[in-house]
């Protein structure tokens, strides 16, 4: 018990003694973990998108804004005739705005400016008997003059998933690089800590301290720096995520973003803390092996 207390106090003193390099270590680790966090958050959203893609196989046909009522009504009955179509629902531009308003209850004021000159096109929502009909139906829709653009959730989701995957790979790749850098920065920090205590270490060994006792504070120091990094990383990832979600809600309202609940924050922190500990342990073990000869 006394040994544990002794080691912890040694560790904290050592971190404090090398404030600068300790801080740098925690910060780089934090950055690496921030990238890991992004990848985690993206993957949470990807899962959500896959779900959406499965449940909402709905095609949206955006109609010509200038189209008259008769033209629109004609188009709707034409669409009903397309083989494979099971349900057709007409959504006027007013309805579309109202829907948007529903989706963004709290941020609806953003949409007030749209009221006067509603830019949303009227659209038709089509469900097919099965997913396999989607390509044919889409093609048929595109051949209609009155239809401006065709979108279907699966397509939207597929694109989002692609973007999400790209972001994920990039952040994971970045994390590996920055993670390697953090290992080196931590190793350096621990080397400084060892150098600062060379004489003390010599005496410890002379009077019969075990190797484990001598090196443990340094490993502990690495672990603590890694943990500190994970706190920093979680903070930045959460801050960044909130900022990005608000921006996305403003500019790409149809893009679904998963809100961060308590559980996913803890999951994320857990993953980061574990990785942080590993990074810290690797860095300190490296220095301890090289510079402590135990």
């Amino acid at each position, binding site marked *: 018990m*006394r040994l544990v207390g*002794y080691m912890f106090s040694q560790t904290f003193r050592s971190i404090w003694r090398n404030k600068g390099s300790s801080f740098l270590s925690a910060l780089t680790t934090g950055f690496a973990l921030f990238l890991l966090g992004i990848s985690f958050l993206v993957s949470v959203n990807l899962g959500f998108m896959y779900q959406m893609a499965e449940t909402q196989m709905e095609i949206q046909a955006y109609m010509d804004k200038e189209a008259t009522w008769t033209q629109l009504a004609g188009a709707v009955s034409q669409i009903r005739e397309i083989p494979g179509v099971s349900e057709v629902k007409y959504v006027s531009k007013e309805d579309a705005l109202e829907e948007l308003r529903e989706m963004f209850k709290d941020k609806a004021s953003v949409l007030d400016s749209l009221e006067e000159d509603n830019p949303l096109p009227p659209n038709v929502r089509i469900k097919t008997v099965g997913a396999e009909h989607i390509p044919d139906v889409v093609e048929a829709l595109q051949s209609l003059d009155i239809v401006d653009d065709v979108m279907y959730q699966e397509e939207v989701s597929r694109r989002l998933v692609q973007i999400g995957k790209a972001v994920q790979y990039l952040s994971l790749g970045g994390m590996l690089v920055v993670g390697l850098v953090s290992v080196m920065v931590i190793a350096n920090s621990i080397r400084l800590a060892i150098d600062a205590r060379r004489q003390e270490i010599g*005496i*410890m*060994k*002379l*009077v*019969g301290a*075990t190797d484990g*006792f001598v090196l443990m504070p340094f490993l502990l120091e690495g672990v603590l720096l890694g943990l500190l990094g994970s706190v920093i990383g979680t903070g930045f990832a959460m801050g960044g995520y909130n900022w990005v979600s608000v921006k996305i809600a403003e500019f790409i309202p149809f893009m679904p973003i998963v809100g961060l609940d308590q559980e996913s924050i803890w999951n994320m922190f857990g993953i980061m803390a574990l990785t942080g500990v590993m990074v810290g342990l690797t860095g300190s073990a490296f220095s301890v092996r090289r510079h402590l000869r135990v």
Partner: protein
Amino acid sequence: MISLRNVSKVYNGNVKALDRVSLNIDKGEFVFIVGTSGAGKSTLIKMIYREETPSSGQVFVLGKDLSKMRRREVPYLRRRIGVVFQDFKLLEDKNAWENVAFALEVTGTPKREVNRRVTQVLNLVGLLDRRDAFPNELSGGEQQRIAIARALVRNPDILLADEPSGNLDPKTAMEIFNTLERANIYGTTVVVATHAHDIVDSLRKRVVELRGGTLVRDERRGAYNH
């Protein structure tokens, strides 16, 4: 207690620091190791607390064959051996008390036990009243006595000293050797490498002389020079 059998030590493949040295030291003995600079005194001392291992031959200490000893056993050997050096090796940021207590703390000794033993040993070296002084507030002789206290605080079986009075004036040096003698009276085996002729001559202990790494003299109640 300590037994060297045909011990040779070659540094870097060519410097022969010890050459087939055989030596037995019994429990409770007080032994001087003498010899000119480079004779191998420090090397011999290092063999005993396993700071160095022999290139050939065997070293037995406290019933253990050190050449067969595993790394992780070394700390437990060291806990039974106190070592003192010419340059004291005290930690500047700890006061006298803390320097001595350090040796116990790093092996997880309970606080009450630490207090008891540190008080005892500072009393033995006559520096209990300077317990709060930092090394830079102590004279060389006092610093060396603190170092001796640290070496003795675990009540070791063996006390090794490598030129403990090398940096001290003759009068202070005598005080140091008196302190070592006192530890010896309490039963600790003492081995001292030294250049201090006068003291060796006046104390009349066993003297082991090295020359160029070979043991050339082993004399009961000997003097510095033959």
